[in-house]
């Protein structure tokens, strides 16, 4: 941009450029913003809103002008600086710094309900956020470590949720018993679905997993006798604290949590309990990932992600290795799913649409594939922030989609893109991450 401005008449070029952008904006806005089909008693009627078209053109013109000017100014300043300063690193890019940030986050999460601003509402939102963080960490095993693009992760989340809901309703099993069963069910589903498709190429795998996600949702929607169809399952049992329920009154011969500990009953107790429960589940997922990366199987995943042919020649069985990643990722989604069911008390296929898969995958990719702290940041950005603006329901998803595009344009490798290799030869310096501007493989 700066070089183009340096040509003969920078001002004229700039204005022309902005005018072109404004023209495109007007053309985009004209059919869909300029006209509106309004429902009336006589059917659809066309309304005209041409000022909106002019507004969008004007905003784009001004925006383009300002951004180009600002970009040129920043470019000049960067050019004036010594080159080392220009190539500054992301503040959390070092391994030590990131570990420190991670511990700080864990500490913050632990004390959050005790702080003065940790009221019921905030803790509830943090619980939701933690579900997404846990799902992000679970999917990270599949996408970040093993490099398998899974667009239907929400299917396993649904399997976990329905497993718990149906088991607890049909057999009266408790949450704690169902949690491992739900994880196992989801992992089994992962194996069954994964086995035939894991030898497919990346993009095909993505689309097949997307298809599976939809199939599971359609089955949940239509298998009325088992899943209740679109009405879902309700009155799902709430979890108890080692058999002590969080309710105002205990059933005959039992004690509630509050009675046992001699506390006054408060509905907040359950909310805080759920918060700590998902915190523990999420941290377990994280710990598992961190540890398994050091085990042969974790190393095999990462090796497979980097080069499948090389792995094969080194005697790694790609199908088994991929399948294990797929199943373990699915298992964590199953855990998260049964937690979701117990927290909501009600589940329906509505909660397991493709958009959820897209959100979880974006969290992983925006976080910088494979970076555990990055996933937390991305989840806060994509799920936490919009959650605070729930009043602007209509514009929330628009902003969400826009943020996905903008973050990708800004940092195509994710927020925390730098990743230290798990293992290094002693003499060799760490290889620099691949230059994002270098041309990568384009399909042949």
């Amino acid at each position, binding site marked *: 941009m700066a070089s183009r401005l340096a040509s003969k008449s920078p001002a004229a070029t700039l204005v022309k450029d902005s005018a072109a952008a404004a023209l495109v904006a007007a053309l*985009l806005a004209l059919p869909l913003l300029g006209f509106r089909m*309004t429902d009336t008693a006589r059917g659809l009627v066309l309304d005209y809103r041409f000022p909106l078209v002019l507004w969008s053109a004007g905003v784009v013109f001004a925006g383009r002008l300002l951004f180009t000017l600002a970009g040129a100014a920043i470019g000049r300043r960067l050019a004036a600086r010594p080159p080392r300063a220009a190539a500054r690193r992301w503040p959390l890019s070092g391994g030590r710094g990131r570990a420190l940030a991670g511990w700080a986050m864990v500490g913050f999460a632990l004390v959050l309900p005790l702080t003065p601003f940790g009221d019921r509402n905030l803790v509830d939102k943090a619980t939701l956020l933690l579900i997404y963080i846990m799902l992000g960490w679970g999917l990270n095993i599949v996408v970040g470590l093993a490099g398998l693009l899974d667009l239907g992760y929400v299917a396993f989340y649904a399997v976990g949720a329905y497993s718990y809901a149906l088991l607890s309703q049909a057999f009266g099993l408790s949450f704690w018993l169902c949690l491992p069963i739900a994880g196992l069910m989801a992992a089994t589903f992962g194996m069954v679905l994964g086995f035939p498709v894991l030898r497919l190429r990346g993009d095909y795998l993505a689309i097949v997993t997307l*298809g599976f996600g939809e*199939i599971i949702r359609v*089955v949940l929607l239509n298998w009325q006798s088992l899943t209740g169809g679109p009405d879902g399952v309700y009155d799902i049992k709430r979890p108890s604290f080692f058999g002590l329920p969080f309710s105002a009154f205990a059933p005959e011969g039992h004690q509630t949590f509050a009675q046992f500990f001699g506390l006054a009953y408060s509905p907040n107790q359950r909310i805080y309990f759920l918060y700590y429960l998902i915190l523990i589940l999420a941290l377990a997922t994280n710990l598992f990932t961190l540890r398994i990366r050091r085990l042969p199987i974790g190393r095999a995943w990462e090796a497979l992600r980097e080069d499948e042919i090389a792995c094969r020649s080194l005697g790694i069985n790609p199908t088994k290795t991929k399948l294990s990643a797929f199943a373990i990722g699915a298992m964590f989604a199953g855990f998260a799913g049964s937690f979701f069911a117990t927290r909501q008390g009600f589940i329906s296929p509505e909660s397991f649409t493709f958009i959820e898969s897209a959100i979880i995958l974006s969290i992983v990719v925006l976080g910088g594939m494979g970076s555990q702290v990055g996933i937390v940041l991305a989840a806060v950005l994509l799920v936490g922030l919009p959650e605070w603006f729930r009043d602007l329901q209509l514009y929330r998803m628009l902003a969400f989609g826009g943020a996905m595009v903008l973050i990708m344009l800004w940092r195509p490798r994710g927020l925390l893109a730098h990743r230290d290799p798990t293992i290094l030869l002693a003499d060799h310096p760490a290889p620099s991450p691949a230059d994002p501007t270098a041309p*990568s493989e384009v399909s042949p």
Partner: protein
Amino acid sequence: MDYFLQQLINGLTLGSIYGLIAIGYTMVYGIIGMINFAHGDLYMVGAFISMIAFMLLAVLGITSVPLALALVLVMAMLFTAVYGWAIERIAYRPLRGSFKLAPLISAIGMSIVLENYVQIAQGARVKPMQPLIQGGFDLSLQPGHHTSLSLLQILIMLLTVGLMAVFSWIITKTPLGRAQRATEQDMTMATLLGVNVDRIISATFIIGACLAAVAGLMVTLYYGVIDFYIGFIAGMKAFTAAVLGGIGSLPGAMLGGLLIGLIEAFWSGYFSIEYKDVATFGILVMVLIFRPTGLLGKPEIEKV
């Protein structure tokens, strides 16, 4: 037999629509190797623009159906093409040659943006339209049965065949098509030989958007109702069609589209309408397992 024939006609009509969308996926995949996730939403945008254009023409007092159809076709293609071009320019071009998943995420984001933009701009309610083209032929073979082929179905199939002919001509005979094929084979080499790759990729998105707009127009006429969410499921089926036919192959996309349409029609006709999407994806999975390159795709050899 009558019932079979009816499902065949319905399936071919539906398949034509899927095929037109599938071409957009397959072309983009062939050239830049990305799944243009927002393509299904372009089809939705095309449907909305078509409906608005019809209403506008009605306000302007143009009542001749062929004239209105031609004008709407042009308008829908034109404006949807601007959308296709802008999406590539804003969300994909800066990411070209970047990390492999980045364009996919950007495309998913773009798809969410388009859906919500249309929802905000036009409202979430389903938009109905009066049937514009009525009448048809009775093809009943046996008395007491009923098989019909409507004018609209004939129009959809003819338009698809016509567009396919024009499109094949563009790809095989014109300089643009030659440049496109060159870019598809080797982008670097094409650049070295003086092909303006940026322009070719833009052209690809524009052509894809035009075909999606036609599909959107057809679906508006055929079903008579549209909403902001139609792009997702149709886009997914069209992508399935592209993979089924062999991604990157243009005749394959059309063939895949027709097959998906037929599978859907016959499954809904003979088994259950609720599980028609399951049938589609089930067949996709089968094809990928037993013939991963699709029906007409070339096998891909991975080199070290």
